[in-house]
């Protein structure tokens, strides 16, 4: 049970990570698209992304597209590894049922 990661375990953050690790490793997703996918507010998503970024589980890339600012988010290698460990820990708990 000690393998459960407290940062990732929070439901919204867990769903963010689940969405990001589904993308191919080199891809990043637009903030607005991710918000629609998760059905959360801007502020809520922003706060959770900050937590994940502080833990180095995600990378946030701010760019200009046609002179408009856009924010892209991707899972880091560390984030993918930690997420897989978290899922493995959950599966271990389930098997011990």
């Amino acid at each position: 049970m000690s393998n459960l990661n407290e940062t990732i375990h929070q439901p919204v953050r867990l769903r963010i990570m689940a969405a990001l690790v589904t993308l191919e490793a080199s891809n990043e997703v637009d903030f607005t698209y991710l918000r629609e996918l998760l059905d959360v507010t801007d502020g809520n998503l922003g706060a959770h992304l900050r937590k994940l970024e502080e833990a180095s589980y995600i990378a946030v890339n701010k760019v200009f597209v046609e002179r408009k600012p856009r924010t892209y988010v991707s899972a880091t290698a560390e984030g993918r590894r930690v997420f897989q460990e978290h899922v493995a820990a959950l599966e271990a708990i389930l098997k011990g049922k």
Partner: protein
Amino acid sequence: MNISPTEAEEILADIQRMEQKTRHAIASGGTTITLIVTGAVWLIGFVCTQFLPEISPYVWIGLSILGSILGTLWGFRMGQRVRNPEFGATAKRATIFWLLLVFYCIAAIAIARPTDGKQVTTFIILFIMIGQLSMGLLISFSAVWWALPITALALVGYFFLPSIFYLWMGVLGGGGMIAFGLYIRRRW
């Protein structure tokens, strides 16, 4: 942190739902539109070639232009949602690859001097499918393996069903792409 097996099961189910939703959102945007648009172009173009060969060149030109515009617009829209930051350099190489492939296709046709439209069509289909498979293998676009059954359909139609080759490619090739696109959109 302690959680019960029941909670773990619920969380795992939630993760699975989110992964499936993401896959579906991405696939239903890019791959399905490509399949449906290409399938529609093939269905109309090939059926027209089978039954109205005298006007089919104009139909193909119109459909190709329309398909290219739709594909470009949709690709641009999808590129803003999910993107690869290193794609710019890859896109240039991919463009050069396709241009060279067109050149090689024209060269192969010029050397082989096909005697009828079916041979030219099969040559073009094979070269396009080589390009499609190469893009999939090198750039990792999702769901590009459909190039293999299309290639098989073209070969079966060319060798075994020459009299209905265009109808075969239109209905099974084009219709198959549309059906597969709709299947991905609804079931993935």
